[in-house]
């Protein structure tokens, strides 16, 4: 799972008030090379929850180069920063791990590309 996806996901358990962000535990990561597209990065950063991204990137040790806060205009011109964001969002792949809902602590696990998000309410 890419960190870009993690940034968009939140818990859909019933009764949860704020299910974002999902806590990532027991994770193993891999990095791949993905083509860098600065336009895409500039546009996607306005859709992200920046603090959550920084937090999880630092937790995984891939957060270097990420600014603490986004500038007002939400546009970044510095190519190195853009490359660091590109790396954290798209090139890091969490291949194994668990996601925990911050309120109900329901854990979902995954393997490779597929994350098991079933609630299994019985």
């Amino acid at each position: 799972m890419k960190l870009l996806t993690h940034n968009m996901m939140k818990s859909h358990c019933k009764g949860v008030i704020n299910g974002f962000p999902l806590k990532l535990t027991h994770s193993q990561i891999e990095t791949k090379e993905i083509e860098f597209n600065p336009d895409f990065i500039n546009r996607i950063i306005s859709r992200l929850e920046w603090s959550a991204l920084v937090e999880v990137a630092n937790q995984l040790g891939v957060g270097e180069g990420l600014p603490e806060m986004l500038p007002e205009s939400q546009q970044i011109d510095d190519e190195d920063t853009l490359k660091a964001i590109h790396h954290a969002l798209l090139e890091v792949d969490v291949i194994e791990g668990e996601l925990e809902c911050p309120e109900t602590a329901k854990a979902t696990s995954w393997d490779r590309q597929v994350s098991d998000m079933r609630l299994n309410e019985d």
Partner: protein
Amino acid sequence: MDISQSMLEIAVERETDGDLLLADIGEGVPFRAGTFDGVISISVLQWLCNADKANHNPFKRLKRFFTLLYSSMRSGGRAVFQVYPESPKQMELITEQATRCGFTGGVVVDYPNSTKAKKVFLCLFAGTPVNNLVMPQGLGSENENTVQYSNERFTGKKRKRRGEVSRKEWIQNKKQKMRSLGKDVTADSKYTGRKRKPKF
């Protein structure tokens, strides 16, 4: 997202881009508010109408799905679902639940007269789209909004004789008919129905 592990495994085999989620959409979708501008779904919604387990209630599942989907979409976002409804009633059920959750839009049908080529799409808008609500036009339905009606009594006296319609007209009518059935028809050109020399 898919409920079937095997289908997801095939997706992995085919090296699909992006991340895959094994999930039951009847439980909702696990995304943050205002995330998506576009949603595509193919041959999925009709399954929400089935109750595969004892505790499944299709109404509730559809409602849960559309509620969470609506909130995960940005205002102005669009969702298109290609569905294979069992009956018009099922289509109504789905559309009703979607409207209850705040979606606008409706059903678009491609080639409504053909059993083979007919495709049903549910096109939904979350909030008001930026460049006005324009519903896509279904294919193969240009002549379907009118019905020919006349008050004349049919006496059988005005029987059409064969050959009344010119050859070229007949060919063009036939091509139009085939087009509305969704078949591949070559484009009309100056050679279509052209009069041949007598030696033909």
